[in-house]
């Protein structure tokens, strides 16, 4: 004889049991992944030392506000040109011939180095200018500049 019933007595796990069950589960996971856990601790220690951990923590907690601020700011009209430039710059970079720029920038660097040794009082007369053309270093620079000007005008 069994009449219909619907009351259920749940199995009451004591807090200590639940605690122990959870700990067992965690201990097993730690033991199964020892190497990863140790590396993880190392990583945490490193970013903690540099103060990054606090920053990341705060940022994650305030993610929505942070994103809202950043988005709100970046969407203001004054940034629109910057953002567009950013992307244009990105494409511009793709079109540059880096090898040649490197060649030029080396030359420029040399020039600047020497130029920086100039005294304020130093002057150059017309005669000195003509004479200087005979100096092979100066002549190479002038020729290069003239070729550059020709190329740019094409």
């Amino acid at each position: 004889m069994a009449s219909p019933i619907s009351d259920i007595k749940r199995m009451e796990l004591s807090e200590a049991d639940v605690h122990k069950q959870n700990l067992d589960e965690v201990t097993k996971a730690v033991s199964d992944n020892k190497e990863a856990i140790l590396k993880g601790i190392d990583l945490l220690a490193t970013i903690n030392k540099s103060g990054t951990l606090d920053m990341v923590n705060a940022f994650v907690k305030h993610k929505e506000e942070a994103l809202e601020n950043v988005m709100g700011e970046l969407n203001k009209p004054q940034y629109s040109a910057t953002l567009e430039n950013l992307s244009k710059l990105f494409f511009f970079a793709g079109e540059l011939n880096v090898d040649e720029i490197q060649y030029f920038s080396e030359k420029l660097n040399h020039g600047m180095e020497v130029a920086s040794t100039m005294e304020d009082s130093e002057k150059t007369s017309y005669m000195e200018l003509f004479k200087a053309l005979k100096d092979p270093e100066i002549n190479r620079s002038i020729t290069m500049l003239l070729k550059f000007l020709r190329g740019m005008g094409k």
Partner: protein
Amino acid sequence: MHNQDHILITINGEEFLAEPDQNLLDFINTTGEFVPQICYNESLGPIQTCDTCMVEVDGQIVRACGTYVSPGMQVNTTIDQVNTAQKEALDRITEKHELYCTVCDYNNGSCEIHNTVAAFGMEEQSRPFESKPYDVDQSSPFYRYDPDQCILCGRCVEVCQDVQVNETLLIDWEREKPRVVWDNDVPIDQSSCVSCGQCVTVCPCNALMETEMVGETGYMTNHSPGLLRSMIDLTKKAEPGYGPLFAVSDTEAAMREERIEKTKTVCTYCGVGCTFDVWTKDRKVLKVEPQHDSPANGISSCIKGKFGWDYVNAEERLTKPLIRDGESFVEVEWDQALSYVAKRFSEIKDENGADALGFISSSKATNEESYLMQKLARQAIGTNNIDNCSRYCQSPATKGLFRTVGHGGDSGSIDDIAEAEMVITIGSNTTESHPVLASRIKRSQKLFGQKLYVFDLRKHEMGQRADQFFQPKSGTDLVWLSAVTKYIIDQGWENRTFINKWVNGFEEYKESLSTFTLEYAEKLTGLTKDDLIGIAKQIVRVDKLAICWAMGVTQHQLGSDTSTAISNLLLITGNYMRNGTGAYPLRGHNNVQGCSDFGSMPNFLPGYEEVEDDTARNRYENAWGVKIPNKPGKDNHEMIKAIHDGELHSLYVLGEDTGIVDANINYVTAAFEKLDFFVVQDLFLTETAKYADVILPAAPSLEKEGTFTNTERRIQRLYKALDPLGDSRPDWEIIMNLANRLDYNWKYANPADIMDEAASLAPLFAGVRYDRLTQYNSLQWPVHADGTDTPLLYADGFPFDDHKARLYPLDFELKHDTNETYDLHVNNGRVLEHFHEGNMTYKSTAISSKIPNAFIEVSPELAEERGINEGAKVRLTSESGEVTGLVHITDRVRGKELFIPLNDNGKTAVNYLTNNNVDKDTNTPSYKEIAVKMDVLKQKGKSPLKSNNYRRGNPQPQIGVQVERKWDREDYIFPGSQVKQNG
């Protein structure tokens, strides 16, 4: 196929062979050439709205999807003009749809706009996105529509109008900014939408999306709307061309796969056997996605399969075994519960013999679980007292088919029903009980001229759509079927050739029909002689006839005989052995077919071999090392009686709410109270479980592996999408645990092992193996050892010794009627939204918000006679019991017919009214034969049918999306012509 059947066409200078009349885009897609396409979908065919598939054909720019191949056709897909036209079409799309993929919930690798724009290599759009002046429609609890993201491809309209054929969605092409509208432009929730979700499935982008997906799928999509908007703006500013934008969004989409699992499963509701991918994130079900390759359903689904999964995570789920202790159930560990059950089973067996125990399998559980349950009964206990819920519905159909054609299943596939020239449905509310299958019939009738004749007491949707609708008097289908058959023979219209070659017993059968004259049929059924002659003429006029039937036939005292009469008619007219013909008893539950197939029957071993057949039984005895009783055991109905008679002392019910779904539940639950020991295995504390001594917590389909067999005899695999909740376990594990406690050393590592054993013993499933059933692959039994299956039965003859079918003579006697006291007839059946007693579907708040409880349908004429209005409260009393409920007045029922949805387990549960009468051949309760009297408790009240129920909507039938109306707009220019003008 021979070469002469093919035609030669040239694409970009290369010659190809195509099939005559093949769609050009379809063909190009097989050649590896790329042509952009968005509205085209292989399941839907050409819609011609998106204009992206521009190609040049014989010098003209045309839509490839709107063109069919012809001999010598010259096609070019790459010239500049074509490219420009394609680009123009894509520009029009990006004008309507904002590409903010990274923060879009639809960025899951399958967005067809994203993929097309990327594949085309479009770097920039020529014109900016233009917002549309409409709000997002969030009124439905199932899905939402964002007009701003909608590209008006019309796939949703196409699928609603011509695949689901619910005819709710259309595009209003004439307004300034066209949009998709529901009915006559009402919010989704107020429309005739049945929430089948197919529009969402076919939407190529995020315009239509499941509510559960919104804000859930992406790493950056779950933000407040304002923030999301500014992120979209920033995304667009910072990502200048589509190349970089897609690089970022594709990476993000790939990352999503880390946390969203997509698992193939089989629907757990009706017998159609829909398959789909279920998307889960942790335990949350995000979405159900039917596939083009889903064998039974393709891209189709219904509200339950698409959205009815809340029960899996319902807080009412049982997560620990329970043992009755006084007035409470107490949660215990498995060890204790299993030992206790094994001990009690053994004690009862020792004391009263094996036949004092009974076992009931579940049509919700897998084939493997049915197999194990009958093995537990037959091997570990030693009794044939094993049955399943097909006893409540489909056993009579199986009986009728066994008598005549030899296999207890659908003759063919759902494709065959769709292909028939004429479909007759009898006692089947197909649109609500087998929604996806009904859609195939509705489509064939709407688009391809299929004739639909519907026989039912109730003018449900199929009745309303039918070419001819008949309402024969309850329980008299056998009479009109036999009279029509007799008339056909009398006129000499029978299929002589077929009968001579393939059918036995014609003369004897013909003689048995002598009483079924037109006059007799007219008197008993209420159909006129002209009706009957018309039906006969229409049947012989067509070459391919399929007959579908369901509970309106089987749940009568003459259920088996009526099923037999259907098969007789098909034999006389030669409607077997060919595609597009045959008998289709529409199976009600996901695995009601498989549960019987795999042996949970008192008289059958797996594969329908009789327990009385010594050869078959010996095979199992040898394999299992025991003696099996050689006489059939008790069926469900007999078990309940045996409890009352003191013969059955223990019952183990798996996944069945017998105390609600069996007939005359007062009688059934009274039996439960008399049991010595009662084990119930279920997801929930059901009405039945409340009587149990031990309740074992089981896992639903999403939490286990296995196979289900649908109404087409199609065996399909389900994969595990989630872990069992709490300490619940899959049924097969629980049964195995029990067998092992009873000292039978079962060692199944997984369900595949169980299937291997079943296949090795049952010839019907000889070739069934899991590696032949991977993903969307399926097998329709019989399956030969080499893996060949049988989509169409009887193609080479019937499974009798001489390969001939048998006509089976019948007679008729009206078994039930109303009388002076009980003057009303109660019919009952399903509603679309709920399933069975509702243990699963009522757990969905969304579904319950549409239809929170059952109701009583009353005809307008009866309402007037009794002076009641919508929302009245009435009590119905039969000889067995009473129910109370609220009245819904509708002309779906007529005269003194009432209808109660069977999906209720409260005061309106119909089985308080049903009685102990059964089908004389199978003991299936005659649920459909209830006479009641009605007492009015309150004359009017609030309607039980909510204002947001689809039954109150206003469908807008049309064919397809009517793209011509788009083309007729003044602002429409064909991209091909535009190119010419500009070029």
